[in-house]
């Protein structure tokens, strides 16, 4: 753990995401041989950090990310988001999901709703804002993701990049404190990746706390404040971005970086 992160913990600043020893296992071939998708993962993430999770496929990056908003259940350990423990209490879960936005690899827009309805549904139903408040939020957001001329289009009428930007706007409309990105650019054509990455960069610059699973090393280098390197369900290395790429410590990290850089 780098000195900066240690300092933050020492300074008594409360992490916005606190993960303590979570495990996610699936039954293996025999009883004593469970397969761990996530193994003893502990991490503190502070306000304003952009944490990029990298690692080979099957390392448990997505599973870890999906644990953070309760889409995936974990078998043991503890997750506390913004002071709320993530547990079997449904109320806590809904509370946490209000504060944690998520963007998916396959966009997952609602195909039967226009962009306007996609973005406004949760704001109206969960945040319980009025139509006019909703319109104000939407105008700002759609401008931010540069898609304001498509409010009345259906998802199928948009390109992949446009759809993903709508998905980002939809998550942002809830005014979350944390944004999770699960390989948000992996399903996009090359020429559309940058338009989505740019939106994510702007978001990071505005100080949004972000946890990003991605294969875009350029983005990781440029935007991340911190890198988590995962392999076989474990966090192998957890360091600030610059020193991670320039002076990796663990052998597994070095091997991985040498393959992709």
């Amino acid at each position, binding site marked *: 753990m780098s000195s900066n992160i240690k300092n933050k913990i020492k300074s008594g600043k409360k992490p916005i995401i606190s993960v303590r020893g979570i495990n996610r296992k699936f039954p293996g071939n025999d009883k004593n041989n469970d397969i761990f998708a996530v193994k003893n993962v502990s991490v503190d993430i502070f306000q304003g950090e952009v944490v990029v999770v990298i690692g080979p496929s099957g390392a448990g990056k997505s599973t870890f990310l999906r644990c953070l908003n309760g*889409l995936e259940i974990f078998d043991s350990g503890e997750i506390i988001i913004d002071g709320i423990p993530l547990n079997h209490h449904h109320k806590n879960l809904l509370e946490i*999901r209000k504060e944690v936005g998520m963007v998916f690899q396959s966009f997952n827009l*609602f195909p039967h709703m226009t962009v306007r309805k996609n973005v406004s*549904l949760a704001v109206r*139903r969960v945040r319980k804002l009025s139509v006019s408040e909703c319109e104000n939020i939407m105008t700002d957001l759609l401008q931010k993701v540069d898609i304001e001329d498509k409010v009345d289009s*259906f998802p199928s009428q948009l390109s992949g990049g446009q759809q993903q930007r709508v998905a980002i706007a*939809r*998550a942002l409309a809830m005014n979350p404190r944390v944004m999770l990105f699960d390989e948000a650019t992996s399903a996009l054509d090359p020429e559309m990746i940058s338009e989505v990455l740019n939106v994510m960069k702007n978001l990071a610059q505005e100080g949004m706390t972000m946890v990003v699973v991605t294969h875009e090393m350029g983005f990781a280098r440029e935007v991340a404040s911190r890198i988590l390197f995962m392999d076989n369900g474990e966090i192998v290395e957890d360091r600030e971005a610059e020193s991670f790429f320039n002076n990796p410590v663990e052998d597994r990290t070095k091997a991985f970086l040498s393959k992709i850089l």
Partner: protein
Amino acid sequence: MISVRKAVIFDSLKYFFFIGVLVFLLVLSSLHMNYNWQWYRVPGYIISYSPDGDVSAGRLIRGLGVTIKISVLSLVFAFSIGMITALLRLSSSIAARVVARAYLELIRNTPLLIQLFIIYFVIAPVFNISPFNSAVLALSLFEGAYASEIIRGGINSIAKGQWESAYSLGLSTIDTYFFIILPQTIKQILPPLTNQAVSLIKDSALVSTIAIYDLTMAGQAIVSQTFLTFEIWFTVAFMYLVMTVSISAFVHYLEKRNNYVQ
């Protein structure tokens, strides 16, 4: 343009030729049987004129009215029962799943006629249910079981990502069903559900066995009085056909109108 018109004319000719052959065979066979066609007597059973000149619905039309009433009520109830059963089967409660499953297996694995008899002869006297309500109850329970499997299949066909994105936005399970899953499901299941509605209308003919004066019963009564066997049964069949075809056409129209771009 001209070739299209030619094709249409040619197709129509083929169609009329086919129908013509059918009618010819029918007439031929009736000649063999020495059947005395009396179509002119049929309109009297569709519209009846009382001696003092008042016009009222004939017996067939009144039977048709009963059939429509039973079918529409049963459709509404069958859909509701189907929806509830599907949601119970998909719920996380074991008790709910067992109850739904038991109902489903019981209904799907016994004949509708027997169910109708059990409800009419056993259950109805105990709870003092009228014959009409017994008929609606039996049909709703029967078709509801099939509808529930259609609805369940439709819900399962919705991509997992739709649930996940709805949940990740903090929507409750009820809101997710109501705003995200069911609207997409309905679109998916409209064609098989229409089939089920058509089945229901046809199955409703069975209620004539429990002393309900529906279209089939009316036909039966008229035939036994007048021996207009062919004419009346053809007319009755045609009336069922009109009902089922108009349902299909209506749903087709709905589908077209609700066709959000995919």
